[in-house]
């Protein structure tokens, strides 16, 4: 009854093109936003902010970036971690070169660097397809991480080879660095993620989104209806890498506080890929659902045995965690290859029909 759509008629194409043609969806989003912006920050503990809330948001953003490339435009990438690294290192260089620059501007600018690198490594996609392309993205992955390590200029020749986030103020409040409070960082990340998500939704539901999806579904046919494949693929690489780069900058500046090159190694790429897949390729919502699952799973696994009083070593938990993530992926692919987002869709359709399923 809650999801009844029967009386909601569209009288104009304008209304039909609204973000949520069904009224209940808009209410639901409103409730989620109230939770995210008001209720959660009032109740969450320091641990919840750092172990769950902030990483969920950042990983979801990275997965959103990857999803644009893989889920919408159909170009499989295994190099997301390295592109996050480009965003993070670019942000570090910008912040250290212009200490007075607003951090929002710095983060927004750093996305352009990862977009440029993304386009450069996306060029092969014009000639190389499918798995071969996936492997070429590994070239980006390994080469860039090597570069982070060997190119001292990137980390200002610090002896540790790592980048450290200094205390950064915005409007008199410390938002990043060792002295920043978790609540501030949470709000900062939440605001960025909300804004980027809204822009991404707009891009994917319009002309550009349709072009990407047509390239994904059948690139030859797309070309034959007049779509310029080069523009379509490279724009997907650019926008995807931009978002991934912003996520990388947030990852280091608003969460980790410091980074070594191997942080951006292939396990990070895979973690983001899993979030996108388990959440659902070709879906925006899915990135959040996937991120919640992948980030929360180890936390739950880590705390559950202690709460139940089962003695278990942290190494064992780590191993179990890897195993369970692997099994979860296989399980999801078998049960619902389209991910958690599709689950929600099915539930929603059932709710609309309920209580008269026929």
């Amino acid at each position, binding site marked *: 009854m809650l999801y009844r759509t029967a009386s909601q008629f569209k009288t104009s*194409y*304008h209304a039909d*093109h609204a973000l949520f043609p069904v009224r209940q969806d808009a209410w639901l989003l409103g409730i989620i936003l109230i939770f995210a912006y008001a209720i959660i920050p009032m109740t969450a503990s320091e641990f919840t902010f750092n172990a769950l809330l902030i990483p969920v948001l950042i990983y979801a953003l990275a997965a959103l970036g990857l999803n644009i490339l893989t889920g919408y435009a159909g170009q499989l990438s295994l190099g997301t971690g390295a592109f996050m690294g480009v965003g993070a290192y670019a942000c570090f260089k910008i912040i250290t070169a212009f200490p007075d620059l607003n951090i929002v501007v710095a983060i927004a600018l750093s996305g352009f660097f990862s977009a440029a690198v993304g386009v450069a490594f996306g060029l092969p996609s014009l000639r190389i397809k499918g798995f071969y392309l996936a492997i070429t993205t590994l070239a980006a992955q390994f080469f860039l991480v090597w570069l982070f390590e060997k190119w001292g200029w990137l980390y200002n020749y610090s002896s540790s080879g790592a980048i450290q986030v200094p205390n950064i103020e915005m409007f008199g409040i410390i938002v990043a660095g060792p002295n920043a409070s978790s609540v501030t960082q949470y709000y900062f990340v939440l605001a960025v993620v909300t804004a980027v998500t809204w*822009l991404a939704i*707009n*891009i994917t*539901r*319009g*002309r*550009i989104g*349709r*072009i990407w*999806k*047509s390239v*994904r*579904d*059948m690139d*030859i*046919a*797309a*070309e*034959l*209806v*007049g*779509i*310029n*494949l080069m523009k379509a693929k490279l*724009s997907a690489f650019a*926008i995807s890498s931009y978002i991934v780069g912003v996520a990388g900058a947030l990852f280091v500046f608003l969460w980790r506080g410091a980074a070594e090159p191997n942080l951006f190694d292939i396990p990070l790429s895979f973690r983001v890929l899993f979030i996108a897949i388990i959440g659902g390729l*070709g879906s925006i919502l899915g990135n959040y659902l996937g991120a919640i699952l992948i980030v929360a799973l180890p936390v739950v696994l880590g705390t559950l045995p202690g709460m139940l009083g089962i003695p278990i070593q942290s190494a064992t938990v780590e191993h179990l965690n890897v195993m369970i993530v692997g099994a979860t992926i296989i399980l999801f692919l078998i049960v619902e290859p389209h991910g958690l987002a599709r689950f929600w869709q099915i539930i929603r359709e059932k709710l609309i029909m309920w209580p008269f399923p026929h």
Partner: protein
Amino acid sequence: MNAQPEHTAIVAARDDGIAPGELLMDVRNVSLRFGGVKAITDISFNVRKGEIRAIIGPNGAGKTSMLNVINGFYTPQEGTITFRGVERRAMKPHHAVRQGIARTFQNVALFKGMSTLDNIMTGRSVKMNRGLGWQMLWHGPALREEIEHREKVEEIIDFLEIQHIRRTPVGKLPYGLQKRVELGRALAMEPSLLLLDEPMAGMNLEEKEDMSRFILDVNRQRGTTICLIEHDMGVVMDLSDRVVVLDYGKKIADGVPDEVKSNQQVIDAYLGVAH
């Protein structure tokens, strides 16, 4: 891009400044090879504005290859194609679309993960030009453009009588409807020349009748020039104004249906076997 005319009952074919009956496309001495295999040998024919032109021939005669050459998917080794008075060089398919050539495919080539509406909307991609900045904001110019084109697409949907499957992912549609959606996508491009590769393959009689009606309506009401490949001889002879017959990559006959029907070479190569 041409200015959009006031939208009439159906989206009009583009005004390309060529009077009905005049030459729209001229294919001259075209040959196409894959390695040592000759797909097309020295073929010449033309298409006049406003007509329905059929290409027929047994399997492997080079019909689909011919369409692929016309819309720029293959580049022939020899010969020239003049379209709307301009001789063309080697080109990409999306250039052919911009020149006003749209097509459908023998094996339906729709975007399976997308809805009927979105599939047909992709046909309008070339005509939409709001950039990334407006797209990101959505409200304002991008939305206005989206709605303007949505109206055109809805006209096509009405015309093809596929309103009820507007939101259905095309991968889930039966074959006959997929063919219709594909025609819709091609119409959305408002082509001067519409290429149809076996529009009725695998259809039952009723579906064939529907499709024939759509093809005739497109041709008569919009004045769209059509070049089609079809195996059903009854359909070809009824629909088309002129027929060109290929066999083993060579042209063996060209003329109005009655002439072609009585041509001995054609009967030997094709009709004699088929009937």
